[in-house]
């Protein structure tokens, strides 16, 4: 007769690392506090907070549309344009990078590794830094914003694309080869039809993020709604800040909803 075996206890070998890890985290938190200056509010903090609150709750509705091209609607449209064009450009740049970085069978590991390294390098540059550099190159304005969004997005978009390529089912391509197709024809007839919906979906997702970052690029002079926002904050016209924030929220929500709906249909 065989005896019922009891579930053995989980091996306890990693307990030690667990406690040391937590001790390190706590130590880091404590150490961070030592660098903090004494916590004190400015004297007029309450007054400023009050006027801020008043401004934000009484937005400057007149600013929405003034007709002279210097209003909120125009600024938002410009931001939308920067994000759209930037994402579009980056989607195109991303394609060759994605195929370079994709780690597919029968490829030398260094090829894809070097591609992945470059994409990581691109991702480490914040958009703001890119915008500042492009302003030096092409002057302040939306074009610098487009380039900043365009180049920064490549880092993430090409990575998403290359993952789509890695996860692709290679069977359909094999069938094209078997029918006498060359490599390019395999790509055209089997790979692209499978990848395109995924690519478009990734691009839309990236566009959602680009709208958010394009909103603040104007703060360094790269065009869009960020410019009036930073002016309004510096001149303490809180009611103007209020309406701009409302505008940004509405635009971001609308774009999220729209692109989310589109993406659901694609897959």
């Amino acid at each position: 007769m065989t005896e019922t075996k009891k579930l053995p206890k989980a091996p306890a070998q990693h307990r030690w690392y667990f406690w040391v890890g937590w001790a390190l985290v706590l130590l880091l938190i404590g150490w961070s506090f030592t660098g903090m200056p004494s916590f004190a509010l400015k004297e007029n903090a309450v007054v400023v907070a009050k006027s801020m609150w008043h401004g934000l709750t009484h937005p400057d509705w007149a600013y929405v549309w003034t007709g002279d091209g210097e209003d909120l609607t125009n600024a938002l449209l410009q931001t939308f344009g920067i994000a759209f064009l930037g994402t579009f450009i980056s989607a195109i740049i991303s394609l060759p990078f994605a195929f370079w970085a994709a780690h597919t069978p029968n490829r030398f590991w260094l090829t894809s590794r070097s591609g992945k390294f470059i994409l990581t390098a691109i991702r480490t540059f914040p958009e703001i830094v890119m915008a500042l550099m492009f302003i030096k190159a092409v002057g302040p304005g939306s074009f610098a914003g487009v380039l900043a969004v365009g180049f920064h997005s490549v880092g993430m978009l090409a990575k998403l694309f290359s993952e789509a390529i890695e996860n692709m089912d290679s069977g359909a391509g094999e069938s094209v080869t078997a029918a006498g197709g060359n490599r390019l024809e395999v790509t055209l007839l089997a790979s692209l039809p499978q990848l395109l919906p995924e690519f478009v979906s990734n691009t839309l997702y990236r566009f959602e993020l680009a709208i958010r970052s394009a909103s603040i690029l104007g703060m360094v002079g790269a065009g869009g709604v960020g410019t009036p926002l930073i002016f309004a904050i510096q001149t303490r016209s809180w009611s103007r800040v209020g309406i701009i924030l409302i505008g940004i929220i509405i635009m971001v929500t609308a774009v999220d909803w729209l692109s989310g709906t589109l993406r659901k249909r694609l897959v």
Partner: protein
Amino acid sequence: MAEPKPVIEFEHVNKIYSNGVVGLKDIELTIMPGEFVVVVGLSGAGKSTLMRAVNRLHDISTGDIRIDGESITKARGKQLLHIRRKIGMIFQNFNLVKRATVLKNVLTGRVGYYPTWKMLFGLFSAEDKQRAYEALQTVELEDKVYTRADQLSGGQQQRVSIARALTQSPRIILADEPIASLDPQTTKRVMDDLRRINQELGITVLINLHNVELALEYGTRIVGIRAGEKVFDGPVADADAATMAQIYTGQEEG
């Protein structure tokens, strides 16, 4: 009438994988036009390797394989593509572009007849679209022509891939475990289609199966493979239970 020429010839074919595993060992095989040849053997015996060697999806190590008297082993570039287009292939996992329509999938079979730039724009001729539609009629799926491939059942997808192979106007159809992921009814459907293609259109069929009953029911000739070696080759009538047992277990019965 002239003596019929073999459509597929294997001459001392060896395949050794890069990790040292022997895939095929000195295979000699001659297949005549119109035959329905079933390759049987255990999983891993080299059946798939044999199939894929025919259209060079896998390269062989030594030996020669000739299609219609022309060596595919030595063929390069265009020549290789032109030999391949004579050989339709059906796969275990159907290998369709799932997001594309049935028509587009079936048209893919014609790729070998077009210059690449035309494929860039998907420019298939009206004549080929009609040919694709007729191939779909052969497998009785003409009403699904504009349906997306992923909306079909497994059996229907496999029949679409048969239509794709037919559109190629092939001399040979290779079927690599075409029914391994199908239920018994659908299996019968697919096998009947293949038999019809073989008998009515005279296309040579080379198929591998691991179901002995099906092999005996549909095949005209059985080739037994064990550990990369051909251990049996003969008409179905000669493949009795003892022979089959020998192919599968390597032991003489009785």
